[in-house]
């Protein structure tokens, strides 16, 4: 059984339909990219899983539990760790506090300190500034911080919304190389929303393409990028 399975969910903001019967599955240990044009419903999909918006219909299962309509904190406590779009660091909190925030729900308290050391080992720049306010960090550093923060929650799955948004190409490379490193060393399950299909193919993993609130295409990221189907689906040629 999949770690996460989203089954035919629809989300509406008032008159506007953001998701239309979308379904995805993420297996333990795999990396799934969700890609697609602006307004395709990628972020809404993550928000629905995280419990920030409530789907009008459909089921979501995570770690064997039905979670559609549950509160965000309850979903987080099942091991779903979210890095939302725009990063959302707590600018008024110190870097250390940002990292510690997600550990409140962990049962394995003795592991927390060890994890903390590991995170600081991965992001030495964070350790140097651990007592500074997170608001002073640059965009790339903030991205590292929120990834670290998500890891500190001890998750089964990390969902990241547009990790490259607003970052310089060099920094994007850094972020992704860190992600790949973490994935490979810790066996993380990742669910990444990424507008750039090329970036997804470079990282490797499975990919779904969304358009107008629906899942339009699904397959191996590298395979899809090679073929023409992706472009067609992305821009909507020849469909209807």
């Amino acid at each position, binding site marked *: 059984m999949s770690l996460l399975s989203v089954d035919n969910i629809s989300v509406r903001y008032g008159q506007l339909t953001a998701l239309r019967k979308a379904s995805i599955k993420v297996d333990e240990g795999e990396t799934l990219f969700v890609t697609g044009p602006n307004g395709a419903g990628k972020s809404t999909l993550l928000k629905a899983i*995280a*419990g*920030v918006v409530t789907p009008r219909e459909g089921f979501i299962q995570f770690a064997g539990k039905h979670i559609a309509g549950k*509160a*965000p*904190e309850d979903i*987080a*406590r099942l091991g779903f*760790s*979210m890095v*939302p779009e*725009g990063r*959302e*660091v*707590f*600018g*008024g*909190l110190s870097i250390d*506090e940002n990292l*510690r*925030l*997600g550990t*409140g*729900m962990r049962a394995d308290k003795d592991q927390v300190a060890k994890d903390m050391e590991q995170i600081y080992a991965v992001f030495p720049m964070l350790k140097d500034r651990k007592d500074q*306010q*997170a*608001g*002073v960090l640059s965009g790339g550093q903030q991205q590292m911080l929120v990834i670290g*923060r998500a890891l500190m*929650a001890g998750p089964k799955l990390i969902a990241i919304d547009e990790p490259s948004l607003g970052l310089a190409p060099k920094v994007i490379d850094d972020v992704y190389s860190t992600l790949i490193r973490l994935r490979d060393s810790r066996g993380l399950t990742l669910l990444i929303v990424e507008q750039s299909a090329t970036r997804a193919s470079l990282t490797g993993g499975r990919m779904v393409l969304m358009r107008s609130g629906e899942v339009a295409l699904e397959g191996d990221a590298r395979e899809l990028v090679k073929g023409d189907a992706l472009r067609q689906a992305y821009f909507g040629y020849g469909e209807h």
Partner: protein
Amino acid sequence: MTALLQVLFDALSLGSLYALGALGIALIFGVMRLVNFAHGDYIAFCVFAMLWPSIDAAAIVFAGNLPTIILVPFILAVGAGLSVLSEIVVFRRFRNANPATMMIASFALGFVIKYFLLMLYSSRPKSIDLWSNLTQQIEFFGARIPPLQVITIVVTIVILIALTAFLKRTRFGLEMRAAAENFTMARMLGVRANRVIMLAFAVSGMLAAAIGLILVTQTGTVDINMGANLMLVAFVATVIGGLGSLPGAVLAGYLIGAATVIMQVVLPPDARPFRDAFVYGAVIAMLVWRPNGLFTSKATKQRV
């Protein structure tokens, strides 16, 4: 020099009350984006809890007769209880409502509390003597300060230190600060919304109770509208301080207190009745100058 010291003390004692009020409002605003207009009525309710319900002109003192060591926790508990109760009964259902709806709901709640008190106690202000042994005065570098003022300032500082320690040093405090900054993100990190919100309401209610105790000691009066004016100033202070910023709220509270006292001192007699017009004029100027308030955390700015 002495005169300056006196003005400083006067400003601090008035500002202390505003700061406590602003803190109470800012806490709730932080976690819920709710401007709680019932806050002033919490203050009145806490003070009325010292009296036995009666519509006679003379007050029948009830809890007010308790020894201080019991009275203070009792009144704080009343404040916290009322505040939490209003969260559970009313505000919980407005979590996802827009700010205007919440604000009007809080106003309606305040209205209910006020008329409830009016029914029980009548509208005539009542008098109660609390801790009147604080009435001799002490000399401080030539400035004559009634201990009441000193106590107000000291109590406020103690509350501020305690609250800061709570916010900085405890897990709850960390979660509350995070929730104040970005509630949804905090929840996505497993912070329990209900607990944090209830805690914020409890602390805010206790602050209201503390204000009530200081006010009643200072004025000797128990009045249905006693919290109203303070609540307004506190509300303004919260905005000037920068929404979501607790230190900002406190600082702005002291600023408004200082501005009021200074205007009272420097304005000529004919202009003194217009004091509040000047103070609010300064508020407008301040908002036009810094619409986001004095303290805006980078995170807050990004999101707006």
